[in-house]
């Protein structure tokens, strides 16, 4: 599904990713953990196509094609979804309108017919229930005045509606209360399938108790320095990152 080889990324002359390798197969969930500032969001944004980051070396293949060559909207239409760490507010733009436009853009790319307002409502109703999002929420401006937790649930609602092939979730669990965390986890798990892959960026092992990953990676100073299974997450939770970084330095 996704192959990242020797990825180097710089922002304003400063190198942030320094030779990152990662391979994600369909059906897998990968968790990426790592200290603040290690480059996790940078990776997520580069995968989504944010152009303020420059890729200086390496390549990224998505379903065998050069992902970095595609415009952000093309990536999205081909099934790449990013749940933002900080979802952007867009005053005046109706939340439901954006979601419907997004869905129709995706469907157009897939050669499927457009949904009208009626069908759209039918389609999102059960997903809204799952995310515990009320109808009024749809008629508000995108993310404007949403609480931190509401923004995150809205991101997951979008993901559920768009049904991406590759979803990258950047700290979707941060700032959620216990109940909201369960709701988000249920949403993500409902999308789990053999033809879909997910990359979860998180600081908290407790998310990974609810969404059990196949692989866990530690990103430190722009590189993946250790990989393992869910046990690694537990160990990190208990011991912090120092030992991993020391291990990497001595290797």
């Amino acid at each position, binding site marked *: 599904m996704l192959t990242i080889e020797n990825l180097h990324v710089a922002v304003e002359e400063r190198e942030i990713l320094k030779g990152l390798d990662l391979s994600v197969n369909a059906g897998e969930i990968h968790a990426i953990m790592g200290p603040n500032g290690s480059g996790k969001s940078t990776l997520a944004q580069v995968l989504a196509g944010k*152009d303020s980051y420059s890729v200086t070396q390496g390549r990224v293949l998505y379903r065998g094609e050069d992902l970095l060559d595609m415009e952000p909207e093309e990536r999205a239409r081909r099934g790449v979804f990013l749940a933002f760490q900080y979802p952007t507010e867009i005053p005046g733009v109706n939340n439901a309108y954006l979601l419907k436009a*997004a869905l129709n853009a995706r469907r157009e790319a897939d050669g499927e017919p457009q949904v009208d307002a009626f069908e759209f409502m039918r389609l999102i109703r059960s997903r809204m229930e799952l995310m515990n999002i009320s109808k009024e929420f749809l008629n508000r401006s995108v993310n404007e005045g949403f609480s931190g937790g509401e923004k995150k649930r809205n991101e997951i609602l979008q993901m559920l509606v768009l049904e991406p092939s590759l979803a990258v979730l950047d700290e979707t669990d941060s700032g959620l209360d216990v109940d909201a965390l369960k709701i988000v986890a249920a949403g993500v798990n409902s999308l789990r399938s053999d033809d879909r892959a997910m990359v979860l960026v998180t600081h908290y092992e407790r998310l990974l108790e609810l969404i059990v990953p196949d692989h866990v990676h530690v990103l430190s100073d722009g590189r993946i320095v250790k990989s393992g299974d869910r046990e690694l997450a537990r160990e990190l939770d208990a011991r912090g990152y120092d030992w991993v970084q020391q291990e990497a330095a001595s290797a």
Partner: protein
Amino acid sequence: MATEQKEITDLVKRKYEHGFVTDIEQEFVPPGLDEGVIRLISQKKGEPEFMTEWRLKAYRHWLTMKEPDWAHVRINPIDYQAISYYAAPKSQEDAPKSLDEVDPKLLETYDKLGIPLHERARLAGVAVDAVFDSVSVATTFKEKLAEAGVIFCSFSDAVKSHPELVRKYLGSVVPHRDNFFAALNSAVFSDGSFVYVPKGVRCPMELSTYFRINAANTGQFERTLIVADEGSHVSYLEGCTAPMRDENQLHAAVVELVALEGAEIKYSTVQNWYPGDEQGVGGIYNFVTKRGECRGANSKISWTQVETGSAITWKYPSCVLRGENSVGEFYSVAVANNYQQADTGTKMIHIGANTRSTIISKGISAGHGQNAYRGLVRVLPTARSARNYTQCDSLLLGDKCGAHTFPYIESRERSARVEHEATTSKISEDQLFYCRQRGLSEEDAVNMIVNGFCREVFKELPMEFAVEAQNLLNVTLEGAVG
């Protein structure tokens, strides 16, 4: 980011869709202006004596006036002797009795503009009075309106068939002395629309007029007068387009609205005159005087405008709130793209007690466009407990354009409450990226954000025109993305 700027610059480039010239014979009065020309216009239109005299009086006054000191706009000097003040399509010598008699070429023109007269009128239940250059071409639904007692006809017709009404109300809101362009218009106006809604009548349909400037070197000076008698209600929409030409063309209209006790007038404009090319060559000079008077108690006048065209727009639809408890509203979207300059806003003059006014202005600047909001709220000592709320928002696309806000507040009554809020925002790179990550093209994302910005104004437009306004705005800001 440099790339972002480049993209936004690309984004705001676009083509003018209505720039075609209709090839039909026209009859001109030769360029130039003197009393002879005015008499000729009046005679060609078969006007009664009082009209001719009215024009001449305005003309003589105009001679004593000076062009206004241009408000925040750069302008090429206008040679008033080089303008032809009357152009009528020749085949219109004998005015058509029905649509079948209208030159098919002309109808084709309206088709290209997206105004299929037959279809649109029938489907949307809209009565359309189309003014092509100077002469009113066709008026539909006259009969249905006549049943309700509503008079809706070209100004020329009104002068002949309802001289008493014209005489009573013409110039009663915008006197010929009002300003330079109002005086010029009063002297030479060619045609326009006239509406009278009798007491207690709710006009059974939206009334609508389309204007189009076709001939080169002509000015268009139309004159619209709407009178809503006691307790009546009317909604009126005008749309405007003009072909592409390298020279500037002058459009100096006057619109007068009179709302008597308990009456309501809703006046909507979708203005898309040719704005000039990307270098700022050509385009319409749109200098318009629009004013409504809430003459009776509990009356209401509401202006809604979507201004996407013209090289220069200079226009302040205003409300004189004379009657007690009367209400004035102004909702505006003004776009200045490429080298367009818009200086627009409103005046709310509070005279009666408990008068209320609302001003919602949305300015969009792109390219090298300069957009100025200029608004006056004046509260006279008689206007006890008057209230005004003004909200003025500017949206900038790119960094070479400008937005300016000039609010003037003159309150001489202590019990009055006047509030003003203003914001300026930019479409951020993060907003665009967020939308693109959800699969929208950059262009769609910009349109969506711009439409969101304008929503408060669009929702004031009659349904069928809200969609048109939205499309127009999209076309205006359309560009080669990527």
